[in-house]
């Protein structure tokens, strides 16, 4: 029969629509304003939660649903005002080391959570928060790797008894070794080839000395950059976790940058202090007595002055894991794991230096705030950055150390502290901020209000126009359009896309453009009717003839969307995602859903006239 869909096609459409309805449902449950409390090193326990709720009751702040979730505690509030007051109360109650963050706690029913249905997260422009763009100092990463290589080569040359006149790092990517004769150089070259697959050797002669130049290839430098940024990203993720933010975004952007977005956070100073704890770790040997004063640095450690050799025996980025634990006798110790190369390198060095002292130096770039009275009598915060280098461990090497070794002779607190310090120092390269944006929560609320108003108005106008112009067909197109928006929201919720202001307008634009497919079909149907086709024939011809046009037109727009997505950052990407999903869903609804509805109304019976408006 003409214009009837087989049952399976109708059922498929109903199934897709139902699925979309279920997965977009979580967006109907608004989040509760909440405060999340965490501690920088330990889990929050029942007792601490009790302290918090007692303080809130004492301060007369309404709260509910206080729970322990993972490492942190969560307290919900009825409104944003209580949330802010609650946060202040909690901050004043708890001492240093705790982090309190404004948060949004989901209220989605359990069965929806069970099928992994979540809601779209709101972008910073819609809920306020801070956005940082951090640049990883790749030059420093390269320099550090090469310094590490110089030290290892020096060790190797010494143990193989190859005499070199000089060995140094000339520039970030150039090690120069000078030898008195050719055979020493070729021995050294073979040695380097066996131990460092990534160093490219070049021979050169100058002023009677035989020079061996070593550098990393472009490909190896790229690999180093990839590893570095991955390490930095992981470290930032850990630090952001300690801030207890609901949906933090930590993403790589380009080759050397990391985007950090902390929704709901308003205290940028605190966030930056945590993110900026840029720390690097280096293992050294104690300087030999009588070494030239340029070859060591003096540090203070537990009241003593200690000379530490400048040669690095191991870089912090070789550390793969650190933890504090108790040994068989119940004494505290710090267990350090190294990666394969680090372990090999470390065992080689420590084997030759049993009985000597090993030092761990941590350098941290810190920001400190000072408060001074401002012009109007208020205290004004000033910030400055400074580098702090300190010796965090000074211990005797008892045996040749491998991939796992322990530092003993510490108190429990010292062990905890040391493992924390080493962990924070295992970051591969320093970072600095190149972009920072703070958006107040009131601005976000305003954006949501205006955005939804514009969506409702635009959507309403289009619906009215379609019914006015295409009558019953317009109404069917409107149902399809509603399904389209439902699908769009469902897919965005499933991939947990971030809804930004441009994203909302992407939806608006899709609504405007989505009717295009229906308009194409309907004008074609009208045309076929005026060409004298029967109503049923016109419906079929209209849908069929418009199909290739719709596909061509939408595919080109989709291509533009892909370009937009691949070059765009932040808000532009959000817009592109909405655009691409919208094109896909609108093709589905305009072609399949509208057709199914039209078939349902007109299909399989004798029709004299179509309610599609007057045709010219």
């Amino acid at each position: 029969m003409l214009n009837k869909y087989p049952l399976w096609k109708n059922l498929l459409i109903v199934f897709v629509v139902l699925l979309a309805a279920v997965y977009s449902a979580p967006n109907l449950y608004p989040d509760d304003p909440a405060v999340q409390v965490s501690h920088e090193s330990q889990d929050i326990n029942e007792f601490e939660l009790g302290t918090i709720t007692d303080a809130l009751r004492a301060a007369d702040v309404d709260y509910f649903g206080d729970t322990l979730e993972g490492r942190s505690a969560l307290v919900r509030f009825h409104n944003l005002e209580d949330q802010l007051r609650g946060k202040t109360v909690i901050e004043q109650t708890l001492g240093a080391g705790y982090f309190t963050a404004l948060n949004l706690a989901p209220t989605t029913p359990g069965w929806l959570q069970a099928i992994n249905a979540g809601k779209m997260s709101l972008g910073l422009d819609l809920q306020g928060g801070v956005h940082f763009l951090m640049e990883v100092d790749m030059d420093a990463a390269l320099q550090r790797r090469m310094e590490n290589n110089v030290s290892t080569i020096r060790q190797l040359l010494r143990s193989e008894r190859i005499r070199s006149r000089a060995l140094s790092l000339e520039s970030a990517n150039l090690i120069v070794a000078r030898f008195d004769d050719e055979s020493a150089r070729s021995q050294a070259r073979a040695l380097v080839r066996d131990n460092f697959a990534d160093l490219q050797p070049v021979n050169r002669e100058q002023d009677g000395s035989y020079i061996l130049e070593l550098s990393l290839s472009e490909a190896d430098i790229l690999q180093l950059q990839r590893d570095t940024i991955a390490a930095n990203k992981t470290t930032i993720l850990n630090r952001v976790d300690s801030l207890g933010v609901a949906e933090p975004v930590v993403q790589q952007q380009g080759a050397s940058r990391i985007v950090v977005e902390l929704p709901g956070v308003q205290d940028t100073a605190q966030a930056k202090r945590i993110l900026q704890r840029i720390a690097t770790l280096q293992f050294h040997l104690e300087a030999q007595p009588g070494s030239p004063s340029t070859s060591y640095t003096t540090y203070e450690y537990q009241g003593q002055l200690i000379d530490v050799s400048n040669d690095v025996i191991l870089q912090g980025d070789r550390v793969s894991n650190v933890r504090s634990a108790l040994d068989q006798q119940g004494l505290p110790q710090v267990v350090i794991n190294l990666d394969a190369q680090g372990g090999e390198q470390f065992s080689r060095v420590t084997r030759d230096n049993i009985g000597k002292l090993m030092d761990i130096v941590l350098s941290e770039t810190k920001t400190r705030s000072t408060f001074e009275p401002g012009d109007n009598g208020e205290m004004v915060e000033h910030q400055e950055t400074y580098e702090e280098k300190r010796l965090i461990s000074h211990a005797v090497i008892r045996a040749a150390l491998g991939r796992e070794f322990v530092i003993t002779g510490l108190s429990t607190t010292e062990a905890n502290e040391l493992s924390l310090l080493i962990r924070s120092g295992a970051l591969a390269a320093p970072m600095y901020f190149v972009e920072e944006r703070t958006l107040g929560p009131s601005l976000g609320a305003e954006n949501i209000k205006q955005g939804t108003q514009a969506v409702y108005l635009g959507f309403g106008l289009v619906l009215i126009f379609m019914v006015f112009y295409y009558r019953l067909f317009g109404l069917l197109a409107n149902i399809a359009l509603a399904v389209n928006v439902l699908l769009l929201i469902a897919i965005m919720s499933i991939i947990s896309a971030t809804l930004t202001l441009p994203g909302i307008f992407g939806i608006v634009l899709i609504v405007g453009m989505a009717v295009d497919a229906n308009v194409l079909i309907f004008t074609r149907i009208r045309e076929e009717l005026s060409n004298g086709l029967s109503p049923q024939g016109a419906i079929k011809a209209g849908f069929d003839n418009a199909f290739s046009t719709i596909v061509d037109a939408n595919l080109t727009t989709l291509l533009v969307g892909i370009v937009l997505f691949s070059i765009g950052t932040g808000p532009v990407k959000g817009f592109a995602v909405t655009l691409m999903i919208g094109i896909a869903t609108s093709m589905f609804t305009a072609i399949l859903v509208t057709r199914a509805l039209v078939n349902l109304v007109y299909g399989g019976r004798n029709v004299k006239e179509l309610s599609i408006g007057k045709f010219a």
Partner: protein
Amino acid sequence: MAILGKQIDFMKHAKLFGFVSITAVLISIGSLVFNSLQFGLDFTAGTLVEVGYSQPVAISEVSEKLRAGGYEDAQAVAFGSDQDVLIRLPVDDSVTEEEMAGTLVSLGNDILAALSQGSSAQLTLNRLEFVGPRVGEELAESGGMGLLVALGIVMIYVAVRFQSKFAVAAVIALFHDVIITLGIFSITGMEFDLTVLAALLAIIGYSINDTIVVFDRIRENFRVMRKGTPYELINLSLSQTLSRTIITAGTTQLVVCAMLFMGGESIQGFATALTLGIVIGTYSSIYIASSLLLYLKVTKEDLMVPVREGAQDSMP
């Protein structure tokens, strides 16, 4: 059906509108060269502070207080209402990127302190943004690249699906749309930021969509119709698609105008660019893309590809 159906002689005015378009493009390029664009913070780098007042405030008063507070280079403008003020600070060359970002929070507080000096209004810091110079530069580069890549991909797609003359016509029409929209931003001095760049790419998407619908009809008519010169067939195709062109432009314009008037200040540039772009894109599908086909002497032979259209397009 009548041999060529009812039609409007669009192409009669092809020369006139061609002249209008060339003039508009030249004026736009001239303005882009001499006036450039009023780039937003995303591209120029610098610091931006948005302050909300509890009561209306005069911009002159804000500027005066900023000068008194030692911010001679700061520019203040009203943002949406008379209670919101946007303050822009250029990049200070003596301060490095790192230092700049490090002191941003205190800078925001300092400005707030300077503004609240002797003012009874409650002030809130709504937004604080800093973009380093290198980030801005790279963004401008990748944005320009994005436009070119988008145009290139569209050109290849149209060349494959249609024919090379169609590809050339479509891409020239897109260039026309982009340049005139940019030209209007340049002449009026409206701010060009990241969202406007996104709008520009959306315009390319919309305009190519519109052009393809027209091209599709031209292709169909060139293949199906036994009679008719290219001039007549193009007129016929444009007439047949005219009602769709107007309705789609209309519905899209409805929602874009809703954005423009209700969407708030931060979306103004985006909505303005789209409003302009839809008008220009619709116009260019007819008078640039289609006229160019005629000018490039498109023939029926160009489209005589033995594609089994019927078999391929009989969905759904």
